[in-house]
């Protein structure tokens, strides 16, 4: 009997062990995405002629987790003495953190509002989100309002927006995903989207849209390939250029928020200078965002 109880506990715990393992490894990889990022070459910019040391605490937007992961790993190569910490708590908390000084740099995946005073924003990257449909779908252009209506289930048939007769299948990402947060906040469809499919990676979204003629989904601009059709929004095609010049509508800024009255530490200033320089542009692109630095 004792043996059996033990065997029972063992098998049960093994099942759970699998789950626990999943969770652990996922968070691990989310924090260190730079495992496959290109190594940053030491260059001759003035920033890294002097070796600095210290800790830079950043706090805010969970959408910026991927970008921050690449940047902190890359920055380690440039300034090994500086540790950049990232806490994902949401853009609002990022702005508040910069205001009351609980972090060195706040992170916000939106622009500052008028009532958020005492801080200024430094745009480090832009996040363009492509709206993708199946290549067989004749619809080539939609307005932001139409996209929102398709997402919330107000429009249920493609014929209502000039397509073939067929029920709209809206495919998106899981709750907590930065791309989902970005899409929903830009189109104003927070908590209102009627998903048919919630997938855990951009690749799966693209694969599903590619296989279903009635599907519509969203994906990071950098991940879109030729198996799906990225539609134009209000006549503007999603490209790096249209995101940068602001003409493509479904995009947002990734901002560093810094306090206007307190001076930044040398370490924090060095990180901001480096992150907004051309040197970090490749890393930002690897993270799926559009770098603003030339």
């Amino acid at each position, binding site marked *: 009997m004792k043996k059996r109880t033990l065997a029972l506990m*063992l098998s049960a715990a093994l099942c759970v062990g699998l789950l626990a393992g*999943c969770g652990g490894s996922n968070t691990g990889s989310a924090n260190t995405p730079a495992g496959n990022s290109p190594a940053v070459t030491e260059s001759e910019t003035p920033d890294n002629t002097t070796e600095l040391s210290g800790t830079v605490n950043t706090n805010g937007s969970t959408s910026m987790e991927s970008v921050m992961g690449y940047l902190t790993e890359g920055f380690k190569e440039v300034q090994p003495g500086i540790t950049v910490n990232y806490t994902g708590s949401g853009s609002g908390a990022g702005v508040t953190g910069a205001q009351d000084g609980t972090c060195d740099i706040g992170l916000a995946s939106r622009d500052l509002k008028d009532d958020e005073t005492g801080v200024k924003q430094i745009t480090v990257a832009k996040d363009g989100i492509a709206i993708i449909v199946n290549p067989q779908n004749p619809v080539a252009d939609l307005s932001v309002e139409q996209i929102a209506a398709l997402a919330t289930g107000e429009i249920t048939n493609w014929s209502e927006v000039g397509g073939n007769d067929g029920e709209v299948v809206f495919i998106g990402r899981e709750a907590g995903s930065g791309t989902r947060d970005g899409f929903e906040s830009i189109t104003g469809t927070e908590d209102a989207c009627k998903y048919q499919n919630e997938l855990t990676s951009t690749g799966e979204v693209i694969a599903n849209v590619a296989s279903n003629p009635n599907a519509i989904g969203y994906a990071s601009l950098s991940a879109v390939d030729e198996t799906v059709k990225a539609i134009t929004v209000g006549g503007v095609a999603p490209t790096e250029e249209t995101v940068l010049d602001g003409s493509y509508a479904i995009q947002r800024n990734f901002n560093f928020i810094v306090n206007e009255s307190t001076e930044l530490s040398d370490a924090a200033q060095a990180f901001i200078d480096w992150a907004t320089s051309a040197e970090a542009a490749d890393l930002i692109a690897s993270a799926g965002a559009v770098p603003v630095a030339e």
Partner: protein
Amino acid sequence: MNVLFFLCGFIAVVFVLFISVYLIISGLPAIQEIGLVDFLFGTTWASTASEPSFGILPFILTSIYGTAGAIVLGVPVGFMTAVFLAKVAPPKLAAVVRPAVDLLAGIPSVVYGLIGMMVLVPAVREFFNLPDGASLFCAIIVLAVMILPSIISVSENALKAVPREYEEASLALGATHIETVFRVSVPAASSGIAASVVLGIGRAIGEAMAIIMVAGNVANMPGLFKSVRFLTTAVASEMAYASGLQRQALFSIALVLFLFIMLINVVLNTLLKRKKG
């Protein structure tokens, strides 16, 4: 030498205890904060909404329906295959079928999921003329195939363990071979066959990877052709970016799943004990 054996055994026990305790400690706070009734019987899961709600009834029901569906489809096929292999098949044919069944058990679940996603989901969409094929139905089919090997091999062993004298007595009384199999061998092996079904349930309810790719993962109340989320996939799909109460709630889901699996194991052990006793 004995000390070495003891230590190895001890390591396993430590892991078991650590994992159980960890899961309970990390799973309970969210249940306390949300409230047990709201958590278990709430019908809305909106973990990142501005007014978040954490009801996991859709996941619990989906897991139960999905597992039940897989059993309904998988058990008859698995049972008949086991009877075929143990009692009916000519040895040469059995020698082909048995390795195929074993091979089925060895296929990684992600492969089941991938094939389900690329072949089954579009096929279901076309065949039933649905807007999208990812649904509970697809998950049930994938699970039914996945539980076949355990049902077949455990049932087959149970059937083979039936003493020859029983069957010979039946044949001597004039029963045909098939009558003997279904009237004598199967009842004699019933507890082993029941154990195989419970094992199948255990496998189906704990599966995540294969069904996350075919079920659609929307937190709907279950419906056969609706996009649904299981207990396992609820944890797996949101864990990557989860934080705060959302993350704690995912551990609570894992705790609920843990209790389900414990329950199934208790049933399994009772069945196996009855077989021996």
